[in-house]
């Protein structure tokens, strides 16, 4: 009997349940798809570096999954409580017929089990489909071999999904049972009759609160988006808190204020159904201040997460070609000191390494170039930028260590290298220098120092700048624009005893990807061994480092992939949550308002006008939080682009486009479902 009733209930209230069911299915499928990435990737031919990254990605996604599960769990609890409220009348009938609360709980329990099983089953199927899309993404991100691709069902992901969702459904059941025990028959019977007390706020109070909220928000924006040079953790926390509170206050006051303004435009307000439409929206927004705030903030996080993730990834991939012009580079230097006097005895460079060990660059490289980097103990970042005041310096953001020694390079080394990289060479007269830099946060201040023609004194020689700006570029292999500045000086200037690195950069003899990977491995092995051999003969302070294009590629692509996946995961989950909350509220509002629509239909309002009114209501309802979120994001992105710049990332246009597209599909999808289902609800008599 109970079983039958539950099944019927679900069928009857499918209208209400549709969104709930739909959301559950998306939730399950997303959860599965992201957790199945590991299994999916295992079948693809990926380099070992990429595999490591995928393992890391798997671990991170599992971690984020807990967070996502909590978000989805809260959403499900919210939705089920919400649907339960819709059924008070039905419960009342059960109770007047003498059904105990235990039985009602049992009905709800059975329903939850049905819906749970259904959504889990369908969700997993959809998820398996979705994960194929994911692997397409993995393939394109990691440039994997398509030939090895096959459809995989990840058992681990299925188990994980089932565990998470079963736990969630258990929590929902618990919540529902508790809620049922709290029900009172009298309230249930009259819950519909109780004429809704319209929450009306005094317009003056609203305007006041709105102004306060906007000012607070403006201050928070100013702090993160314009005054970010002086940001401290405290200030960031303050601006986040301010942002959150003022978002709440804006939603608290905006409808009252807007309504007052529109009301004063009497010709607009008293035109057609406008009065009705505005009142509907106002009362809705007023009863949903908290949800609206949460939705707005989640949208804000989504927009920032998605567009930042795509920006980082895009610029990483774009940077790679430009910033990795050679196959490999390694640096070496060894200094031996007199143990008693601490006096420098001898500096060994790469040449010495090659001479004294079996390590020969010709074994690996078809072609290579060598260059050295120097420092002057008396020439620091602070010296060069001495004419800038502390505020301008602070605009270098986190780069405030002014006592760092500047790196210096010989002109001939520079030119050989640039020729090798296929880039422009440079000519300097005997008393000139130039600065090479491509770190976005450092470029402007270096340029500021170069503009007035700041002279520098290095190794006792005074030089003037050839250009009043920096040459954009770098000498090392890198995934990002992170060259904070290298001074190029005439060959006669540097003191050979102040050399800090001897570097070789070159292209392999090997040509194919596999061969190159083999060389990478051999080179690393041999280089380590050579260093040890060398150290056993000439103990001293040995510096060395090593980098290959494939390493940079793997880590960059991997990092890009991790960021993309995490951004997508969190972003999509949040979007679903936002869409579902709005849709549920919007639809329940339609159900509550059927009487109102019926009435205006009776007094002769055309169906078309009613549909237009509903569309306007749904639009305002969905756009309001999105609009504020977009404004938030504009300033949030200003801040994040500053952070991204400090990571050497550039360009956000495409990523904003992709982000908008994702939002349009998911959020827009929920909007359309809400509108069309709502239309059906208010038409049904």
């Amino acid at each position, binding site marked *: 009997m109970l079983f039958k009733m539950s099944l019927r209930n679900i069928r009857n209230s499918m209208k209400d349940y549709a969104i709930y069911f739909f959301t559950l299915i998306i939730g399950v499928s997303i959860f599965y798809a992201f957790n199945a990435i590991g299994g999916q990737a295992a079948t693809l031919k990926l380099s070992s570096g990429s595999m490591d990254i995928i393992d890391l990605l798997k671990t991170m996604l599992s971690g984020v999954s807990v967070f996502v599960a909590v978000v989805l769990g809260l959403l499900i609890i919210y939705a089920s409580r919400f649907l339960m409220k819709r059924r008070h009348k039905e419960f009342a009938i059960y109770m007047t017929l003498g059904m105990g609360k235990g039985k009602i709980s049992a009905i709800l329990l059975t329903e939850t089990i049905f819906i749970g099983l259904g959504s889990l089953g369908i969700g997993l199927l959809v998820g398996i489909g979705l994960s194929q899309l994911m692997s397409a993404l993995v393939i394109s991100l990691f440039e994997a071999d398509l030939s090895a691709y096959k459809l995989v069902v990840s058992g681990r992901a299925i188990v994980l999904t089932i565990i998470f969702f079963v736990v969630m459904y258990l929590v929902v059941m618990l919540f529902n049972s508790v809620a049922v025990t709290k029900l009172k028959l009298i309230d249930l019977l009259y819950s519909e009759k109780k004429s809704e007390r319209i929450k009306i706020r005094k317009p003056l109070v609203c305007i006041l609160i709105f102004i306060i909220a906007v000012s607070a928000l403006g201050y928070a924006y100013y702090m993160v988006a314009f005054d970010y040079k002086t940001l401290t953790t405290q200030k960031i926390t303050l601006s986040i808190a301010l942002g959150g509170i003022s978002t709440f206050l804006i939603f608290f006051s905006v409808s009252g204020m807007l309504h007052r303004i529109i009301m004063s435009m009497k010709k607009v307000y*008293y035109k057609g159904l406008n009065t009705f439409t505005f009142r509907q929206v106002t009362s809705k927004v007023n009863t949903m201040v908290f949800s609206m705030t949460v939705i707005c903030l989640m949208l804000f996080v989504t927009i920032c997460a998605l567009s930042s993730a795509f920006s980082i990834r895009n610029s990483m991939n774009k940077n790679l070609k430009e910033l990795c012009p050679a196959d490999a580079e390694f640096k070496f230097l060894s200094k031996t000191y007199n143990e008693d006097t601490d006096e420098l005895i001898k500096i060994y460079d790469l040449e010495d390494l090659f001479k004294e060990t079996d390590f020969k660059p010709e074994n690996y490289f078809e072609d290579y170039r060598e260059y050295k980097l120097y420092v002057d103990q008396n020439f620091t970042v602070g010296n060069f930028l001495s004419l800038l005041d502390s505020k301008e310096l602070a605009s270098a953001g986190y780069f405030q260590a002014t006592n760092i020694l500047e790196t210096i390079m010989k002109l001939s080394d520079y030119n050989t290298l640039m020729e090798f990289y296929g880039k422009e060479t440079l000519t300097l007269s005997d008393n000139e220098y130039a600065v090479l830099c491509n770190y976005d946060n450092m470029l402007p201040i270096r340029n500021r120092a170069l503009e007035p023609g700041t002279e520098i004194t290095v190794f006792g020689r005074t030089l003037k700048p050839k250009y009043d700006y920096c040459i954009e570029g770098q000498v090392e292999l890198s995934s990002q624009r992170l060259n904070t500045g290298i001074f190029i000086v005439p060959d006669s200037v540097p003191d050979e005893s102040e050399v800090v690195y001897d570097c070789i950069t070159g292209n392999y003899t090997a040509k194919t990807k596999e061969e190159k990977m083999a060389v990478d491995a051999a080179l690393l092995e041999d280089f380590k061994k050579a260093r040890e051999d060398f150290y056993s003969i000439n103990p001293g302070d040995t510096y060395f480092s090593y980098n290959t294009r494939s390493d940079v590629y793997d880590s960059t692509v991997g990092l890009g992939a991790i960021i993309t996946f995490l951004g997508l995961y969190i972003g999509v989950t949040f979007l679903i949550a936002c869409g579902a909350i709005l849709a549920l509220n919007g639809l329940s509002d339609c159900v509550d308002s059927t009487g109102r629509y019926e009435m205006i239909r009776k007094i002769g309002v055309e169906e078309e006008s009613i549909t237009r009114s509903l569309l306007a209501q749904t639009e305002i309802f969905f756009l309001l939080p999105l609009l504020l979120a977009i404004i938030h994001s504009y300033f949030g992105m200003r801040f994040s682009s500053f952070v991204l710049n400090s990571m050497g990332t550039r360009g956000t246009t495409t990523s904003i486009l992709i982000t908008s597209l994702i939002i349009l599909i998911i959020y827009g999808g929920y909007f359309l479902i809400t509108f069309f289902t709502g239309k059906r609800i208010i038409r049904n008599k």
Partner: protein
Amino acid sequence: MELLKVEQIEKYYGNKSSLTKAIDDISFKVEQGEFVAIMGASGSGKTTLLNCISTIDKVSAGHIYLEGKDVTKLKGKDLYKFRRDKLGFIFQDFNLLDTLTAYENISLALSIQKKSYAEVDAAVKSVASQLGITDVLDKYPYQMSGGQKQRVASARAIITDPCLILADEPTGALDSKSSKMLLERFNYLNREYAATIMMVTHDSFSASYAGRVIFIKDGKIFHELSRGTDTRKDFFNKIIDVVTLLGGDVNDAL
């Protein structure tokens, strides 16, 4: 002048195997400026009759003419236009929009006729003073008493100058004092503005305010009473007599 002519209308519910005749061959006429009450017990078909006249429901057979135009033939946009421009509705449960103030509720009826704000404002104010609700115009339905709500609903019904005001149990949810006040207003509107009112009720007291009462039983016209020159009290007693007859089994009483 004849305003409304109901001609042999029938309304069936259900299917062939179990047919319910809610209205079974009813015909009557309403003159311009008349105040007609339709009486009958629950299930007698009086609300169905009202719904058919107001085009909310469709008749199964027969014709209804308002100002000589057959409203049973109206379709689509014309239906809405007809309701909007020709009819005024007053319901038992007031049917005010709870999100709107009294003023906005009343003005809505005009603004959907695409009237300018100046016209709307003037009309709302004048109708509010006629019905004595000027001081509640800025209040929301939940802040008003039942009588006030019903007068606001009435204001909304008459503001468009409809040729026919249809009232479905308008005093059903009101206490006796408010009922009396509302009915006197109806009388006033009927007298001073020659408004044609058709009121469905099962309450003899309410019906006694009308100029004519049509009694319906089991979907048929059972009896008709005209007030003529009677006092309201006499008319009331006559109605009570018919109702007593109506209430029991007619065949037994005869």
